[in-house]
């Protein structure tokens, strides 16, 4: 076309005739491919056969023709194309990473147990908070011990393998716990919540029996065991790639998956593309309703929305509420929204004056336009947070939480009581969080109405993190979601004395004692009682202004089914498929 353009123009310059440029057309390639697969052997059959595992390479070479009548059935399964909230950066299981990267590892590592899934009226598969089933473990039992802890026994499924064909044994599960406790990752910090602090508490009884003994009876124990970070790791592979400086092979796994889950990572190109292929050695491979997943980051949310509507991608997360509101009217798109227990909050650092004054904090808490934030920033895709224990969380006390509402007269009264005048405060928000920036403007306007000037500063994420760690931001908007969705876990991390993510630097001994009591009791009545008392202290001390609990939202093309919400809010692909012929 360009060459034609030159000819035309040069001809014009030399007095030639004009020509019409030819139109160029291109047909987009299909975005899904039907994969032909012989039906996999069921888990039960695999156990009976105990056939030697085949390596992936061997399987590729063999591609044996299927001859039996039962195997002649050809099952067409779709490839799922996903574009998630951010770009996958690394897939090391015990290193903090982006949400997309967690989605990859979620698909690759198989925990001992998983949540039962309950289908909701809208088709969403919601993880049960109560019922769990064996995953990497075929059966499991959890008994109370005389020492006040739990003894959990797991029978590891036989016949399941890692994608290189290595059989999964109890030793691979012990390895992942040992690595969590002794390795350089962050997971070890979480295990004391369930009473695990030593590798001696994880015992291999035989190749297929694992025991875990805890020192406390935490309600979180079973939930923790569903997390991907405790999925079996290929111990032989990890040992082979460990070095003197890196005894747990963290560097090796930055771009490789070493799990026994439903998928394996056949391509990992950070920021660009991740390809997940079904793991033939997965214990439930036959039930997998898709032929693999391609994760392709689309940085621009507008383009991502268009691609979903056009059917070029099947599932997307990270679409801002503003666009979700637009997409709601699109017949080609399904929005899956469900309430969560996460929290967006306006933190007030109590080590910085004048926020060390409780009346100033209360003035701010009363001035925040909670409803306007949900309506105008979240476009309704959120519910009121109502405290550090959020409104969708177990033990939330509505008689306390509902008091977080805008009352400008009360705000002015508190400001007067504080004795402060002409306040100017800095409010920091992250550059990557557009919603936070919009919320900051509304908060700025609300505080202006009570006579407080707010300077909103949009900071690069790295700068923001550095400043809140260094107590340099008096006001800032942050968010949190607790895997396991436990109120005491959430309170403990965010608001007890000395916790590194207690960015408001709130500290109250009575509060801490209540949280401690609630964390390690399984009695629902006690949990409710101590949670309510803690929530009251949180409200009285005006620790934060809890802004909203954002919904978990996924957007899919209308033909996609099998959207799951589990304890972690991380996308799950194992149930995802497409309606045939749609």
């Amino acid at each position, binding site marked *: 076309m360009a060459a034609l*353009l030159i000819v035309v*123009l040069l001809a014009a310059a030399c007095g030639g005739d004009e020509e019409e440029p030819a139109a160029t057309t*291109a047909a987009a390639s299909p*975005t899904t491919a039907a994969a032909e697969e012989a039906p996999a052997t069921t888990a039960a059959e695999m156990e009976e056969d105990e056939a030697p595992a085949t390596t992936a390479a061997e399987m590729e070479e063999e591609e044996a023709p299927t001859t039996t009548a039962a195997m002649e059935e050809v099952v067409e399964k779709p490839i799922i194309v996903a574009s998630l909230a951010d770009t996958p950066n690394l897939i090391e299981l015990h*290193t903090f990473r982006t949400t997309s990267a967690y989605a990859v590892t979620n698909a690759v590592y198989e925990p001992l147990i998983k949540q039962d899934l309950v289908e909701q009226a809208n088709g969403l598969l919601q993880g049960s908070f109560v019922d769990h089933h064996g995953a990497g473990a075929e059966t499991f039992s959890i008994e109370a011990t005389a020492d006040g802890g739990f003894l959990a026994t797991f029978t590891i499924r036989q016949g399941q393998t890692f994608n290189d064909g290595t059989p999964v044994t109890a030793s691979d599960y012990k390895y992942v716990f040992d690595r969590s406790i002794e390795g350089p990752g962050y997971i070890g910090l979480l295990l004391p919540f369930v009473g695990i602090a030593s590798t001696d508490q994880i015992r291999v009884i035989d190749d297929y029996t694992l025991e875990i003994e805890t020192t406390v009876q935490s309600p979180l124990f079973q939930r923790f065991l569903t997390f991907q970070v405790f999925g079996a790791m290929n111990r032989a592979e990890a040992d082979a790639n460990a070095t003197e400086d890196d005894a747990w092979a963290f560097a090796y796994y*930055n771009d490789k998956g070493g799990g026994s889950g439903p998928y394996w990572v056949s391509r990992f190109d950070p920021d660009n593309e991740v390809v997940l292929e079904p793991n033939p050695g997965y214990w439930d491979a036959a039930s997998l309703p898709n032929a693999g997943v391609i994760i392709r980051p689309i*940085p*621009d949310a507008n383009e991502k929305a268009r*691609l979903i*509507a056009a059917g070029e991608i099947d599932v997307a997360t990270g679409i801002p509420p503003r666009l979700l509101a637009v997409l709601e009217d699109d017949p080609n798109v399904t929005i899956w929204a469900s309430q969560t227990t996460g929290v967006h909050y306006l933190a007030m650092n109590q080590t910085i004056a004048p926020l060390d004054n409780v009346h100033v904090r209360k003035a701010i808490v009363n001035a925040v336009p909670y409803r306007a934030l949900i309506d105008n920033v979240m476009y309704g895709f959120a519910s009121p947070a109502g405290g550090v224990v959020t409104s969708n969380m177990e033990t939330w006390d509505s008689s306390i939480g509902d008091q977080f509402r805008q009352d400008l007269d009360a705000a002015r009264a508190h400001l007067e009581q504080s004795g402060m005048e002409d306040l100017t405060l800095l409010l920091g928000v992250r550059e990557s969080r557009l919603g936070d920036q919009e919320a900051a403007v509304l908060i700025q306007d609300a505080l202006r109405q009570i006579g407080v000037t707010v300077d909103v500063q949009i900071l690069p994420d790295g700068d923001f993190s550095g400043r809140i760690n260094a107590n340099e931001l008096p006001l800032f908007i942050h968010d949190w979601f607790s895997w396991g969705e436990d109120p005491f876990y959430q309170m403990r991390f965010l608001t007890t004395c000395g916790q590194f993510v207690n960015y408001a630097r709130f500290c109250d001994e009575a509060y801490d004692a209540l949280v401690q009591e609630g964390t390690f009791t399984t009695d629902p009545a006690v949990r409710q009682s101590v949670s309510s008392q803690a929530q009251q202290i949180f409200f009285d001390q005006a620790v934060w202004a809890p802004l909203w609990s954002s919904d978990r939202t996924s957007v899919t093309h209308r033909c996609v089914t099998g959207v799951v919400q589990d304890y972690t809010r991380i996308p799950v692909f194992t149930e995802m498929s497409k309606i045939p012929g749609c």
Partner: protein
Amino acid sequence: MWSYLGRRLLVSVVTVAGIVVVVFFIMRILPGDAAAVRAGPYASEEKLEQIREQFGLSDPVPTQFVNYVRDAVRGDLGTSIRTGGKVTEELLIRLPASLELAFYAVLLAVLAGVPVGIVAAARRDTWIDRAARVVAVLGSSMAFFWLGLMLTFLFFFRLGWFPGPVGRLAITTEPPETITGFFTVDAALAGNWALMWEAFTYLALPAVTVGFVLSAPIIKIVRSSMIETLDSEYVRTARALGVPHREVLFRDGFRNALIPVTTAIGIIFGYMLGGNIIVELIFAWPGVGRYAYEALRVNDLEALQGFVIVVGLLYIVLNVVIDFVYSWIDPRIKLGQRVVA
């Protein structure tokens, strides 16, 4: 020529050293804590310190600098704190994507801008000239992001003529075996014409987005250079002697106007070498611009340093190439000869 090359090499070494020093210290004064981002929300002070130590961030700045230079000389631009990968490798993987887009965008800009500039100059003050000026003004005033979004909306979403902005190829297409890193070229070398065509279709919208905006300065420069040349006495003399219009236009006019045009193209291409962050984000183009953007967001210093240094090196190479092009266009320019006034 060899002495010229030797001198340029020497100057290049000094320039690269300057870039390394400036970039290194500028990065150190940027606010932010990459270790905090890497550590995530469960960031105890011990954990942060461990990460800083792992990535050499807790060493004194002079020590960090010496280590950095020592490794950089060996081609190791450090480890990305964001991905845990080697920066040199990550940049080299992404560079061909940016270079391919830059090449075709600049090619489009030149192929469109030069003829339009010539025509506008040759038909000065006619409707053609006025139209060309309108195009130049439009191109100058149009933002990449707006044009990119409009083009995808129209040609992908509405008309379906071009594929969606998902990168260099369709999501389920396997890329060609890497030879040059340019998918269009590698597919052609492999004889896979369908893949080459597909690569062109995915390049089309981002290349047109950038090419249209970049064509504006080229149109302006070609037009003004051509007008200046066509008004010169030797062109008038040529015309008076009855030299054909076409010959005057191209042999006398265009050739003499080429020096400023080459300079402009060099600057534009150099600008594009670093990747166009906005365009790469809109079209999900996996180039170095997007890499730098992700690095900047989380204070990934090594990645940012590596990006700036690689782009600086490319600039230097480009400038040498442009010098050679000058001497080819205008034989009066002799490389390596001192001009005595």
